[in-house]
Every structure is written in structure tokens, then in C-alpha cells.
């Protein structure tokens, strides 16, 4: 479950797109393949953002890469692309794209869109690293996971409580027996006193 690349693209409708900021993680490829794979990913992102109408989300599969693109349009005409392998869950991918776009628009003013090389958006790298494990990064999945763990803990707790119940039953029986015995003990002791008064 890996994320290969993330990119924020300026996507004016019907025109060519320019990549404003991108980050990629090509560590799974051999050293000599990385160049070509990187170029392929850039080309893939640009093509896909050009072909997605504004305000829509799309997922495209190509060999064993899956790209999810969200063209937000709006005033800034931005789109975000994420390229992953096929196992990566779809919904957190789109959540990540939305989050990234919001972050980008708050940090980078629209005037610097015309100068892509000057844009400094280091958070894209942190996002890439963080979302390699979507279960921890995506809020909804993390909450679900924690809830599942809590449920397991609670199941164990209930089992322990059942055991406790059994032990308590056992204790009750024993204490009943002990109480009866101590009563007999008391009676016998009392009888001894009353029987041998003459001596």
C-alpha cells in the first residue's frame, strides 16, 4: 500500500496544466529506473488533470499505478493528483487531496502560481510520508482502528468479568461451608463448657 507521488497542479480549463508542487517516493524502484518512472508520473499527473472537468473526482488505472485526481477548480483553478498502487484505499486518497489543496491555498498566494519554481510547499513531502500508512494518517480510519482496538479490549474485559463471576460463586459456596463449620465449632466449644461443669 504505497503512495508513489503527490502533485498540485494548476489546471485552467481547456488549457495545458502546470505542476505547481510535487513530491514523489521512488524508493521502491531500482536506481536506474527512477528517472524514467519519475518522468512518467509527472506526465501522468498532467494528462489526468487536463482530462478531468472542474469540480470532479476521477480515478484512473494504468498498469499497476492508480491515479486519483480531484479537480477543485474554483478561483485558483487547482487540481491535486495522487498516484498510488492498486491496494491503496480510495476514500482516504481523496480526503488527502482535499486536505492538501486547502493547505496549499492557505499557504501559497495566487500570485505565485505563474512561477512554479519559486513555490515552496514543503508540507507536500510530509503529507507523502505520513500517508504511506493511510490507517494512521486518515482521521476516519484512525478513529475506526482505535474503536476496534477498544472493542477488543472490552471483549476481553467482559470475559474477565465472567471469570470473576465464576470465582465469586465459588467463593460464596466456600464461605457458606466455612460459616457452617465455624458455627459447629462454636456450638461444640459451648457444649464442652456446659457439659463438664461438675469436674
Amino acid at each position, binding site marked *: 500500500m504505497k503512495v508513489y507521488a503527490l502533485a498540485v497542479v494548476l489546471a485552467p480549463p481547456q488549457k495545458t496544466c502546470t505542476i505547481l508542487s510535487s513530491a514523489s517516493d521512488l524508493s521502491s524502484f531500482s536506481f536506474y529506473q527512477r528517472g524514467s518512472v519519475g518522468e512518467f508520473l509527472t506526465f501522468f499527473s498532467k494528462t489526468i488533470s487536463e482530462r478531468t472537468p472542474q469540480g470532479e473526482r476521477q480515478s484512473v488505472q494504468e498498469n499497476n499505478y492508480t491515479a486519483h485526481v480531484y479537480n477543485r477548480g474554483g478561483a485558483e483553478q487547482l487540481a491535486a493528483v495522487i498516484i498510488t498502487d492498486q491496494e491503496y484505499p480510495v476514500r482516504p486518497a481523496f480526503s488527502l487531496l482535499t486536505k492538501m489543496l486547502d493547505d496549499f491555498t492557505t499557504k501559497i498566494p495566487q500570485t505565485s502560481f505563474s512561477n512554479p519554481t519559486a513555490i515552496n510547499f514543503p508540507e507536500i513531502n510530509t503529507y507523502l510520508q505520513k500517508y504511506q500508512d493511510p490507517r494512521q494518517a486518515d482521521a476516519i480510519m484512525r478513529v475506526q482502528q482505535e474503536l476496534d482496538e477498544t*472493542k477488543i479490549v472490552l471483549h476481553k474485559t467482559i470475559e474477565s468479568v465472567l471469570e470473576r463471576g465464576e470465582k465469586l460463586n465459588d467463593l*460464596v459456596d466456600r464461605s457458606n461451608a466455612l460459616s457452617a463449620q465455624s458455627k459447629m465449632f462454636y456450638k461444640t466449644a459451648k457444649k464442652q463448657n456446659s457439659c463438664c461443669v461438675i469436674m
Partner: protein
Amino acid sequence: MPVQDRTNEFRACVESIRNRSSLPSRGAEAKQRLLQSQGKDGGNKSDFTRMASAIAKDISSTTIKLGKLGQLAKRKTLFDDRPVEISELTYIIKQDIAGLNKQIASLQAYVKQRSTQGGTKSAEAKLVDEHNHNVVMLLQSKLADTSMTFKDVLEIRTQNMKESKDRTEQFMHSTAAAASQAPSSSLLFGNTQRQDPMGDGSLLAPRFDPKGKSRASTPSNGDILALDLGSAEEGTAAQNGGAFMQMELVEQQDTYIQSRSTAIESIESTIAELGQIFTQLAQMVAEQRETVQRIDADTVDIASNVSGAQRELLKYYASISSNRWLMLKVFGVLIVFFLIFILVS
């Protein structure tokens, strides 16, 4: 969104209709003239009644439309479903309700203004004010009932849509069919639907028929009037309207949004399960409390018994050790008997 006082328009309408059909309105005219001759500012009073009767007319027409929508929504056929009609009717009814709400708000403001304007508070004026207040409250309650019915009809509609979608899937295996998402029985959806669809606070109590003549007009008139008010904004109802519209539009966007909502629903059900587990846990521990109390009581008994027995034994020991002389005598007698027996045998 300024409140528009359209009583002049309404009066013009009434005049034009009255001029068109002079015969049946003579009775109404007589009634109005009668009312106008009563009271201090009779003109304003019949104004109020006119506004109130207009509102009541609209409410009745909206109720009728709602009935039609309810009938449409109850249909359970797979193929003859008419989503366009239903959505149009829903939209119209929604706007009607919003418009009615505004009208009632303006009527209420008017009543307040009149009650502060009135100089000398005669008993009659007070009664009139009370009457006006009652009328406004009752109109509001009728509107509230209508909107509740509207909400119920929409719920029925979404349930039927869900059922029909299931049946469609069964017969045609097309999972990518309409993106009709029925609101599940989850608490989240239940809460958002329980809110007042207007976002307004106008939900009040009892039931009343304001004036006989408010029922005099035909529903078709009400229809025309209601459609003219279509310029009323639907802003307040947009929140729920969006959710209802969503289930009837097929968009690809829905996939993402649906999956999000499914995920959140599953989280919510997990939390509910957790709540149940906690309750069970608490119940089990409470049951065990009784057992623990029994053990407690038993232990106390044991302690007292054992201490009592120890007391007895101590007493016995004390008596034994203090009876030395008697003991010596007793033993002496025993030894004598013993010796006698040995000598005899």
C-alpha cells in the same frame, strides 16, 4: 432578506377577482363591510384578517400538494417511478413552506407593531390583540404540522427509493445504478432530519380554524398564489434540501461522498456497540455485587463464630486450670479404683 409586505398586492388581486366575478363575492363583501364598521381602526383589522386568511389559504393549498406528493411517494412500482415530478413537487412545496414561514413572521411583526402602536388600551383593543396573537400562533402550528407531514412523506419516499433500488439490483445486477442513498436509521441522519426544516423556531402548539371565510376560496386560487410566491428564497431549507436532492441526482461525485458517509456510519455504529458493551459490563458487575455482599455477610458470621468459640475455649481452659484441687481429688479417686481393679485381677 427584507420582509415584504404584500398586502397591497393581495388587495389588488382580491379587487380584480371581485370585479371579475361580482356575484358570489357579495356575501363576502357584506361581511367585510360589517367588519370594517366595527372597532376603532376597522380598516387595519380587516387587513390582519385578510393577511391571516391568505396565509391559511396557502397552508391549505400546500397541504393538498403535500397530499399529492404523498400519494406519489407511496407508489411502489419499479418502473413507473416519476422522479422528475416528485422532485419538482418537493421543490415547490419546500418553497411554499419557506414563503409561508416568512408570511407568518411578517404577520407576527405586524401584530407586535400594532400592539405597541395602540395608544389607549381599551378592553376591546386588548381582546383584539389577544385574538391576533392566537391567530398567529395557530397559523404557525398549522405550518408546523404541514412541515412535519412533508418530512414524513420525504422519509417514506427515501425508503421506497431504497427498496426499489434493492429490487432493481436483485433483478438487474446493476450496482452502478441510481445514486439514491436512503438515510439509514442511524442517529446522525435521524438528528438532522428532526431539525426544523426551515431552520426557524416557529413550532408552536394548538389547532384552530381562523375564519369561516378563509375556507371560501378554491384551492386552485391558492395554487396560483403559492406559485407567485416562488420568488421566496429557499436558503434556510437548503441544508435538508441538499440531502434530499442528492438522492435523486446521479453524480459520480456521490461515490466519494457516499463512501465517506458509510465510513462515518460504521464508526457511529461501532461507538453504539461500544456503548452497549459498557452497559452490559456494568450490568454484570452489578449482578456480582449481590454475590459479593453475601460473601461479606458470611465472612462476618465466620469471624463472630470463631471468636465466640475461642472465648468458650478460653473459659474452659480457665476453669480447668483453676479447678486444680478438685482435679487432684478426682484423679486420686480414679487411681484408687485403678489399683483396686489391678489387685482384684
